[in-house]
């Protein structure tokens, strides 16, 4: 049964220039978790090889012999692991994501390395060795689900709409949250204040492979320092230049700039280090400031050379041939810092998205892989050496400890700990509803500390437009640090820069080394991925011609070509070409002469499926622009705004919103924080999280009984598939008070509506129990425990169990009933053996906590260790009740305050009884005008039998909606004459009634209701336990206490804080003030000091106080209690 085609029934405001089919094509082609999947694929195909390339050689030097092992190739196979019995478990034998989730397995694939041995001048045959398992990203290229059709996916037990992009580790789904990093390989300048003097800093984070090194140039009052990795102190700039081979002072100055003002700044610094006159002297100077300072001169110099060649700017290149290029890059950094000092340029904006990159699955996994590979190879080296000494035949596959890599990966993904500082990289995938899953996969986390204010970093930045959703961010300490990708955001993929290099040369770039004076003076500097490679004389034409290549599809669309500082007084123009990955791009329509290149013809052909989005990129109609290139772009938001000056037009005005913000109809009419609240709340709404809910055994989950597609749609909703997995219901909502039952954000709900199925839901919870294999062939057993079993809790509790210890389907279970019956050997086996009780069994059954439900599904399976595991899913039927939380799509949340009988509810002249009454006070201060518009639009939609388009920025306004409503014979403002159901009399005021989409949120009274009179106490302190799950007490907190203090109700305080908590009676010796004890044998109270005849008096104290006394005594402190008066 197919669902309704929304488009056929959608009433939309006609647009002159409607680019929707293109947007649709874009999202359909790219998918919603594309960034992660792309990044992962890139890692599997290329990244993993690059890391192997860095450390592929194991050299073993033995007396008279040299053995070299070389990893010549590495690849990742199809998902496969070893099953418990040692046999390979692959796709054919059922190693698929659905099974991994059920059995608690890790979904992984083997990494196979080809290793070649060279010994004594001979090359031996290559060996294929499994070096570990890498977790497989669901729906990546190596996943078994890749490229499967809808029907096949269903056969594989999947929801066909599942976006993929997460991992399955030990049966639980883990999503990687992308990390937001400062861009590597680009110069960033800043001003710092060090004790009242300003210093000017240019910094670069140079990254190549697993090398990550910071280089900082600090321009101080009369010196310039460079911080180089592995040196103990900062090195003066002229010395580094000299060490790199630019020896003459004049050359150094010229490398920096030809402008007098700058040279003037440089002059004193150059003068200062004139004495270091040769390259060798400079190298020694640096070598003296390294760890090698105590070693012979030649060693010191070599050390310096090594550092400069490998660790200084590794992104430029590794090796001595790159020294000159590095010198020029360093001079460039100095130039910028001096320009900053002279006030010619402003410090770079660290929060600008041009200076940000995302760290996605690929590089993150690469980090783990590189680390674990090193440790594996170290281990292998040791093992080979050992076996070589034993002269035994070396079988590589026995010596490779593949578990090293496997465990590292599993541990990192299961816990989210990457390094000691970076934690929380992976999170349990949010499966509350479809929307929350999508949003989770598009989340971005900033590594900045959450405790410090960092206001700038948290604010919405202009460069976020179209890249980061300005609406969706959590409230509280993470505000602005946790972000989400906008709908239009496309993350760039890497393209080899050498492929661009030829084009640059062809288009008239002159290499740095070959540049003449004229270029140095006035040419534009060209940076390719942060590497200063050359000059061009006319940057604007150069850049336009380069863009021409991109627009003709000759180079990928995600390459950024930008000019900065063009035509700026005193500054030299800079051309940036970026082919790096993890930049966020956004699509824009190109505009020439005030006319968009994307024509109606294009749109029509895209709509017909004859033209793809990627084709539009190839023909240069649409361009992908990153934050840096956006400096060269003038974009119009709406086509009507286009002028001759515009270069680009927004693809669609609502695309700058993220996934969750896009589901808010008429969002542009709401006060902005309300949209943020809704973006957070939509992720808590109940709906259909996935269609394979009957097959899955998730620990917790909700399912809404009758989810509905909203009558008021946004176009994005249908596109992301939310209409197939809706999260709420359309309610008839009247805005009026009702006898105080809806004050303070409560809502009144019509009981008849609830009777008919409104907001009913199911709650699922899975209980799990494993029959553990103990040593000596003893194991737990699933069975219905008999009366002879230790810890037996009574026949009644086991009534739902069958002989196999598992409950029958649809069995009703209540709190305290046994869900899974299991027995096992008693805990302390030895003691029982001594007592001759070895036969006895102990009950290890799992009992139901807190709620009442029926058995939905029982699964018996083997876990990854081969132990029998029982999973029992319990289902509870939840009918809305007082206190359940509901919310509209405009950040208007409330709790059910009353289920009113239908005859008491107000009704309209047509006899319509609202489903929900919301208090008018919810609106004036919150200004959620969008809800009014939705209400009117929804009312029209319901009357006309149509869905109504409420997409922000391009939909109807108030007057349009009024006309539509009036055409259906209703008052255009949405108000109606209403009558009081209790009296039959007309209300004096007209009531605003309409249809609003409401969500039931997962905060329900059934999960939270709790009260206790007497109950369990903690063992240590004897105070009542805390929390509902432990049947805990309700705390009289500090503020509550203050009420009683203020009132002078001292007896209540004493009762609550002492009598109703941990009161104990101790016996205090009046002579010594110590606590006595009761000697049970002699039935006498005894003082530890004065013996049995001491004068002991009973004193009521808090047990915690008694503990304090004991603790003091243990520290040899004598706590003495003086008893003044015996009451």
């Amino acid at each position, binding site marked *: 049964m197919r669902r309704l085609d929304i488009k056929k029934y959608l009433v939309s405001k006609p647009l002159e220039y409607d680019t929707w089919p293109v947007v649709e094509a874009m999202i359909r082609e790219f998918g919603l978790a594309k960034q992660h999947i792309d990044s992962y694929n890139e890692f599997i195909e290329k990244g993993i090889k690059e890391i192997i390339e860095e450390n592929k050689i194991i050299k073993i030097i033995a007396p008279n012999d040299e053995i070299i092992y070389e990893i010549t190739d590495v690849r990742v196979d199809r998902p496969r692991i070893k099953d418990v019995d040692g046999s390979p478990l692959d796709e054919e034998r059922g190693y698929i994501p659905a099974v991994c989730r059920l059995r608690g397995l890790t979904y992984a694939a083997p990494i196979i390395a080809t290793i070649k041995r060279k010994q004594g001048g001979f090359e031996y045959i290559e060996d294929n060795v499994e070096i570990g398992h890498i977790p497989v990203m669901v729906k990546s290229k190596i996943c078994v689900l890749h490229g499967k059709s809808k029907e096949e996916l269903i056969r594989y037990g999947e929801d066909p709409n599942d976006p993929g992009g997460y991992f399955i580790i030990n049966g639980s789904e883990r999503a990687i949250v992308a990390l937001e990093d400062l861009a590597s390989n680009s110069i960033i300048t800043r001003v710092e204040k060090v004790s009242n003097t300003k210093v000017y800093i240019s910094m670069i984070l140079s990254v190549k492979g697993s090398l990550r090194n910071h280089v900082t140039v600090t321009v101080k009052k009369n010196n310039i320092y460079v911080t180089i990795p592995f040196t103990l102190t900062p090195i003066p700039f002229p010395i580094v230049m000299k060490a790199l081979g630019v020896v003459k002072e004049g050359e150094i100055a010229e490398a920096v700039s030809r402008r007098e003002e700058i040279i003037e700044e440089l002059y004193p610094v150059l003068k200062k280090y004139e004495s270091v006159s040769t390259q060798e002297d400079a190298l020694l100077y640096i070598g003296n400031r390294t760890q090698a300072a105590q070693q012979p001169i030649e060693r010191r110099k070599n050390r310096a050379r090594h550092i400069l060649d490998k660790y200084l700017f590794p992104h430029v290149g590794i090796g001595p041939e790159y020294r000159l290029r590095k010198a020029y890059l360093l001079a460039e950094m100095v130039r910028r810092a001096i320009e900053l000092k002279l006030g010619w340029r402003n410090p770079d904006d660290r929060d600008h998205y041009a200076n940000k990159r995302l760290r996605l699955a690929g590089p993150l996994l690469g980090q783990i892989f590189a680390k674990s590979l090193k440790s594996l190879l170290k281990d292998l080296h040791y093992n080979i050496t050992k076996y070589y000494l034993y002269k035994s035949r070396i079988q590589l596959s026995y010596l490779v400890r593949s578990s090293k890599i496997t465990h590292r990966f599993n541990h990192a993904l299961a816990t989210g700990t990457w390094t000691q500082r970076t934690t929380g990289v992976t999170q349990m995938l949010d499966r509350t509803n479809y929307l929350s899953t999508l949003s989770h996969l598009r989340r971005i986390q900033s590594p900045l500390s959450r405790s410090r204010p960092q206001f700038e970093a948290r604010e919405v930045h202009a460069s976020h437009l179209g890249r980061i959703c300005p609406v969706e961010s959590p409230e509280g300490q993470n505000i602005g640090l946790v972000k989400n990708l906008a709908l239009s955001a496309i993350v760039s993929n890497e393209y080899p820069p050498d492929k661009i290099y030829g084009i640059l040369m062809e288009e008239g770039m002159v290499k740095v080394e070959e540049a003449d004076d004229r270029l140095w003076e006035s040419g534009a500097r060209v940076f390719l991925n942060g590497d200063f490679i050359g000059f061009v004389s006319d940057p604007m034409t150069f850049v336009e011609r380069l863009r021409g290549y991109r627009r003709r599809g000759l180079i990928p669309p995600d390459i950024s070509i930008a000019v900065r500082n063009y035509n700026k007084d005193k500054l030299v123009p800079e051309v940036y070409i970026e082919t790096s990955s993890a930049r966020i791009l956004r699509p824009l329509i190109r505009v020439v002469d005030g006319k968009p290149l994307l024509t109606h013809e294009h749109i029509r052909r895209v709509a017909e499926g004859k033209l793809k989005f990627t084709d539009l990129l190839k023909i240069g109609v649409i361009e992908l622009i990153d934050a840096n290139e956006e400096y060269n772009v003038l974009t119009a938001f709406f086509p009507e705004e286009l002028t001759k000056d515009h270069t680009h037009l927004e693809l669609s005005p609502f695309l700058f919103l993220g996934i969750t913000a896009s589901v808010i109809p008429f969002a542009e009419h709401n006060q902005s924080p309300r949209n943020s609240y809704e973006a957070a709340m939509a992720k808590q709404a109940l709906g259909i999280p996935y269609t394979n809910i009957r097959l899955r055994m998730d620990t917790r989950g909700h399912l809404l009984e009758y989810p509905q597609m909203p009558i008021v749609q946004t176009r994005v909703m249908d596109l992301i598939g939310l209409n197939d997995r809706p999260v709420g219901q359309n309610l008839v909502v009247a805005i009026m008070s009702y006898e105080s039952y809806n004050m303070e954000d409560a809502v009144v709900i019509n009981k008849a509506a609830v009777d008919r199925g409104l907001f009913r839901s199911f709650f699922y919870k899975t209980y799990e129990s494993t029959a553990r294999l103990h040593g000596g062939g003893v194991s737990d057993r699933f069975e219905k425990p008999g009366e002879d079993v230790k810890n037996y809790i009574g026949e009644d509790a086991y009534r739902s169990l069958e002989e196999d210890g598992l409950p029958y389907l649809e069995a009703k279970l209540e709190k305290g009933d046994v869900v899974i019956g299991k027995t096992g050997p008693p805990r302390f086996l030895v003691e029982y053996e001594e007592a001759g009780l070895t036969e006895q069994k102990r009950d290890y059954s799992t009992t139901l906590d807190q709620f009442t439900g029926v058995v939905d599904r029982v699964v018996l399976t083997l876990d990854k260790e081969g132990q029998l595991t029982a999973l029992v899913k319990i289902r509870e039927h939840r009918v809305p009740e007082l206190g359940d939380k509901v919310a509209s799509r405009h950040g208007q949340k409330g709790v059910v305050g009353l289920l009113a009988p239908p*005859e008491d509810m107000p009704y309209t002249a047509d006899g319509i009884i609202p489903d929900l009454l919301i208090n008018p006070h919810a609106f004036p201060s919150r200004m959620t005008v969008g809800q009014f518009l939705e209400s009117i639009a929804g009312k029209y939609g319901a009357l006309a039998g149509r869905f109504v388009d409420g997409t922000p920025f391009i939909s109807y306004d108030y007057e349009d909606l009024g006309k539509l409503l009036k055409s259906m014979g209703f008052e255009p403002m949405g108000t109606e004459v209403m009558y009081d159901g209790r*009296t039959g009399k007309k209300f004096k005021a007209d009531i605003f009634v309409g249809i609003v989409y409401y969500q039931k949120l997962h905060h329900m009274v059934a999960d939270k209701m709790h009260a206790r009179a007497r109950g369990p106490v903690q063992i240590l302190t004897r105070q009542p336990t805390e929390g509902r799950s432990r049947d805990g007490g309700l705390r009289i907190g500090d503020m509550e206490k203050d009420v009683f203090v203020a009132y002078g109700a001292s007896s209540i305080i004493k009762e609550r804080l002492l009598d109703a908590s941990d009161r104990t009676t101790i016996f205090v010796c009046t002579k010594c003030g110590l606590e006595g004890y009761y000697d049970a044998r002699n039935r006498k109270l005894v003082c530890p000091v004065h013996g049995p005849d001491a004068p002991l008096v009973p004193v009521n104290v808090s047990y915690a106080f008694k503990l304090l006394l004991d603790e003091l005594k243990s520290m040899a402190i004598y706590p003495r209690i003086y008893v003044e008066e015996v009451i």
Partner: protein
Amino acid sequence: MSRGRGFSIKILDKSDDSISILFKNIPVEIINSIRRISMSEVPTLAIDKVFIFRNDSVLNDQMLAHRLGLIPLKTPVDKYKYGDEEGKPEYVSLSLTIEAKNDFRTVYAKDIKSNDKEVYPLYEDIEIVRLAPGEGLDIEMWAIMGTGREHAKWSPVTVCVVRGVPVIKILKECDSNCKKCVEACPKNILKINNGKLTVTNLYLCTGCKLCEVECPDYIKVDIDEKSSLFMMEIVGQLTIKTILTKSFDILISKIDDFLTKFNEVEIYEDAIPK
């Protein structure tokens, strides 16, 4: 107001499942009582106990039972026991046994078999659940009498309205070319006939006063609260007549109960302050 005199009842419109009546000079409270009682106190039959022996469908047992409960059943008048009535059967037993053999099959209300010929699902094309090949249902149900107060499934009416009768006064002749008031009315009640403003269908007017807002000097809209317009649409378990007479019976018995109780009350002289 002279009690009991001058009142009139006029049926404006009637069909099998709906009626509208104009009551004149009867207190709205009484008419509203009828509305309230007919909604929630007239007993009908509905499935209440469901015994599920087999359910392979995608719907959980609770949801299936809920759907079955909401199916309206034709209710023979006074045949089944409600409350403490005696000598009547307590429930009707119904059953639903079905299996989808080789193809998908939608289960409809008509698939429900009843033990009593007079009790049957009113609308046979209500979809209950869709079964995949091989899935089946085996369900036994008891329908019992109940009222809408307990659960909406027992309510015999869908829409029931008591509202005031609109009175549209045209105060003076106006320039008939302006048409502002005519256009303002969402129900299109006002028309200009031969240059005169006329009201075409008075009872459609809800009293929204949009026309009055446009031309306050020429039109005045009021609601006559002494008369009421009573409109009812029913589900169909009982006929409109039965529902209305039952409602009156219940109202009268309530008043009788009240009177009986009142007469039993002893009046103490001293209780009244002097």
